[in-house]
């Protein structure tokens, strides 16, 4: 690919698409394992929303790239170092509180991001964001409802909610890391511009839940450069193994 702007746009779509794909893969792990039947259904809806966003974004990344790669080529036939998702998305679910903390952080970020993208000049990204913004608003609400209930429920749930918020916190700085690509690409949203509002919204929920705002000296990074956690290889192996066992097959 010779057009540097197309290269940037494809990479940018891939970043957002990988976030959604890997988040969906983790969310789906809850199906048939949720604390109550109603929650199986709710998390199923959230996972399906995330997967839908991933498909649109990966497809767009492939189209812009112009090398004929489909959403499935991109999802199933790239290796660990080629995935550009945030590390937050790939982290194991942990207990329900940790999953909810992860969802609160991620969905709030996605919501702010899609709100910006929705009004952007790239028609496809604006279209995907316009649909997704309603979906993730619901994810934020779902996470919020649970943070409040777990935070201000029993002693055990309060302890677990706090632990979940704390454990996921060191993976949140990465959400807002700016780099040359997002500064260069006119249709991209520089995520550093979202941080203040994100903090305000997330803190509001945490305060209301009677939990403490997490702090952390160390913050992880590397996802956007394809450097992931040790958990990621396993996730990818599971996601890809059938497709890779039958190269060229249709499903």
């Amino acid at each position, binding site marked *: 690919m010779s057009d540097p702007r197309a290269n940037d746009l494809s990479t940018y779509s891939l970043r957002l698409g990988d976030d959604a794909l890997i988040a969906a893969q983790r969310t789906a792990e809850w199906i048939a394992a949720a604390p109550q039947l*109603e929650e199986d259904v709710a998390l199923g809806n959230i996972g399906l929303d995330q997967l839908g966003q991933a498909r649109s974004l990966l497809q767009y990344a492939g189209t812009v790239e112009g090398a004929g790669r489909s959403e499935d080529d991109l999802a199933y036939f790239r290796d660990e170092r080629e995935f550009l998702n945030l590390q937050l998305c790939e982290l194991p679910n942990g207990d329900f509180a940790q999953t909810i903390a992860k969802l609160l952080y991620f969905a709030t970020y996605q919501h702010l991001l899609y709100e910006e993208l929705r009004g952007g000049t790239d028609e496809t990204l604006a279209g995907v964001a316009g649909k997704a913004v309603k979906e993730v608003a619901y994810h934020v*609400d779902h996470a919020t409802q649970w943070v409040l*209930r777990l935070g201000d429920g029993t002693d055990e749930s309060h302890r677990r909610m706090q632990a979940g918020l704390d454990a996921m916190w060191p993976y949140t700085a990465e959400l807002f890391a700016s780099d040359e690509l997002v500064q260069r690409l006119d249709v991209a949203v520089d995520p550093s511009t979202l941080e203040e509002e994100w903090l305000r919204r997330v803190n509001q929920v945490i305060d209301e839940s009677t939990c403490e705002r997490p702090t952390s000296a160390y913050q992880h990074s590397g996802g956007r450069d394809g450097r992931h956690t040790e958990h990621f290889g396993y996730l990818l192996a599971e996601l890809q193994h059938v497709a890779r066992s039958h190269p060229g097959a249709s499903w």
Partner: protein
Amino acid sequence: MTEGAKRAPIEPLWEVFVRSRRGLSHVHVGSLHAPDATMALRNARDVYTRRQEGVSIWVVPATDITASSPDEKDEFFDPAADKVYRHPTFYQVPEGVEHL
């Protein structure tokens, strides 16, 4: 239940009513369990409107519904049976009369 068995507190049962589109009444579609009204509404959205079945939802605690008793069925509903004059088809309209 065996006595002393450890169990979570019972989650209340909610009855769910969905308006399928504007202009229609809310109709009972089923029930579900939820700890409170806020979650009941959200659960209802996820469980009963996955296929765009609704534009508006009501949830009501099942225990708050007062129902007529089947034992009173006769005195409740039979008296309506002989009041055919309540129905428009009871009346004969001469042929050729329109808009009536």
